[in-house]
């Protein structure tokens, strides 16, 4: 009873910051103890690897080789500019990035708008559209490889039956069709996430806002352009940032569906990095590639923050 009184008095008069021990208040010591497990793991598995990564990028180091790591300065980056495969993978990655900024959004927005109408069974639609998002990418990849199979695939069957093609197409075996085909799989696996995120944005547009807009004479396109779209900004920024960063870090879908082929037509930066690390054992060079991907993602995040601050009205 007495102790409780005393501590309440101390709290009132001086606050928890008053009790200083070595520069930190009592609350700060507690906070440090509470944060310690996370900070220790972050140091070992995040900070140290990241710093090591930036130093490794300046070294020539072959994993399992006899040669000791050798300091090469910007050598790895210079080598990058001379490798056609680097430029190729950059071009392929940018192609995916451009496609994946627009296409999954354009598929998801109508779905979100229609799901936002008060229709029966909305929860069922929401759940089912989300199923591809939680499907393991390896399982999805195997299914899509078979869907687009040249000889026994259902896609070629349907297209032949409706007379669009006369001969089966080798979807994943040809450079010009491999990117669109893999992109279809990625859109399939992302659209549900985008639609749900956009739907949650649409649900912030309340009846009051709509009524006020109607009084101002907004309907149809102008309602969409001046009310819906600006209100969707936060959700749109989330969706586009996720799609872009995902595109620049992409690996799984490509590895499972094409392994970067045919003839490097789908070799994204992530795949090129993986090949250098685990097929050619060029750890230094591969790490340098990793820092390039990191910087691109940093730029994407920074610019999407900017987009988030611009007024869309």
């Amino acid at each position: 009873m007495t102790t409780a009184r005393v501590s309440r008095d101390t709290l009132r008069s001086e606050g928890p910051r008053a009790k200083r021990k070595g520069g930190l208040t009592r609350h700060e010591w507690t906070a440090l103890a509470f944060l310690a497990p996370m900070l220790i793991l972050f140091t070992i598995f995040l900070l140290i690897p990241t710093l090591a990564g930036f130093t490794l990028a300046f070294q020539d180091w072959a994993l399992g080789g006899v040669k000791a790591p050798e300091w090469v300065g910007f050598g790895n980056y210079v080598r990058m500019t001379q490798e056609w495969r680097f430029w190729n993978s950059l071009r392929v990655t940018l192609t995916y990035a451009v496609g994946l900024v627009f296409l999954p959004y354009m598929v998801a927005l109508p779905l979100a708008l229609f799901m936002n109408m008060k229709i029966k069974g909305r929860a069922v639609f929401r759940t089912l559209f989300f199923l591809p998002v939680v499907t393991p990418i390896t399982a999805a990849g195997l299914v899509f490889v078979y869907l687009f199979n040249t000889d026994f695939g259902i896609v070629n069957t349907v297209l032949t039956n409706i007379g669009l093609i006369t001969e089966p197409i080798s979807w994943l075996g040809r450079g010009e069709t491999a990117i669109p085909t893999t992109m279809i799989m990625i859109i399939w696996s992302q659209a549900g996430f985008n639609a749900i995120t956009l739907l949650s944005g649409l649900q912030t547009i309340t009846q009051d806002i709509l009524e006020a807009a109607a009084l101002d004479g907004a309907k149809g396109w102008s309602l969409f352009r001046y009310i819906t779209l600006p209100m969707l900004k936060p959700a749109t920024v989330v969706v586009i940032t996720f799609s872009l960063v995902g595109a620049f870090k992409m690996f799984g879908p490509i590895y499972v569906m094409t392994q970067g082929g045919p003839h490097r037509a789908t070799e994204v930066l992530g795949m090129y990095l993986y090949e250098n690390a685990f097929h050619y054992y060029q750890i230094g060079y591969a790490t340098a590639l990793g820092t390039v991907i990191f910087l691109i993602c940093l730029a994407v995040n920074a610019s999407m923050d900017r987009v988030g601050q611009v007024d869309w009205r």
Partner: protein
Amino acid sequence: MTAVTRVAPTHHQRITFGKVISRTLGIITLIVSLVVFMFPFFWMISCSLKTLGEVSVFPPPILPAKAQFVNYLVAFQSAPLLRYGLNSLIVCISVIILVIGMTSLAAYALVFLDIRFKKVVFLILMAPQMVAGVTLMLPLFIVLLELKLLNTLPALIIPYAVLYSPFSTMLLRGYLQTLPKDLVEAARVDGATELWTLTRVIFPLLKPALGTVAIFCFIWSWNEFLYAMVFIQKPMLRTVSVGLALLNSIPNFPPQTNIILAAATAITIPVLVVFATMQRQFIEGITAGAVKS
């Protein structure tokens, strides 16, 4: 006056008519898209039950003449799928425990403790988002090699826990901010330690948010592919997603599509079941993240 009363109803009617049209159009679009989106699942299951003849014929039949459940038996006998499942389950559960333990402590410190540099601390805790994935893979590989953790399940558990923690910290912080501060103040006045307050007072109230975190961690850990492939080379320690992708590396695994798709179906069903039963919390978690930022 008369003009107004005459115009108003027509105006009203036109909107309703337009609404009916757009509703019908919307429902048709949704149903057609749903059929397209669900087709790969249907095809995966259908083909996993076909005979070898039925998956290698043009044109392919829509359904198998007779469901070949034996394909699943063959898949489980040819590859250690149950072992992969057990490995994945161990990883998932450990990640859930680790993430919930670490981030509930951190979120409590951020919300209920009076500390300086709160913003900076929060930003540090969000750092894993920046380097996740392929960027961190090689440096992490080297560190795990040095620590002799490669080819052990902790090589996946700890990095996953670190990388999934920002989402959990953010969600739990948001949830704790909605709780009344008096709860904690009252416990302090009664002389309770902060740890006691967290475990006895706050933790029970956090249950819904912790559920969301657990589902996310489960689904992400079950599906993760890149680290699972690079950090684990021993076949018996593989998780399901890698096990499935590397089926062709198993000696004597039948390369038939029907058997491979049976394996794919078998590893997909656990996630779909977890998601379908807990989908409300899952979608609320995404909604919370999207609206806040």
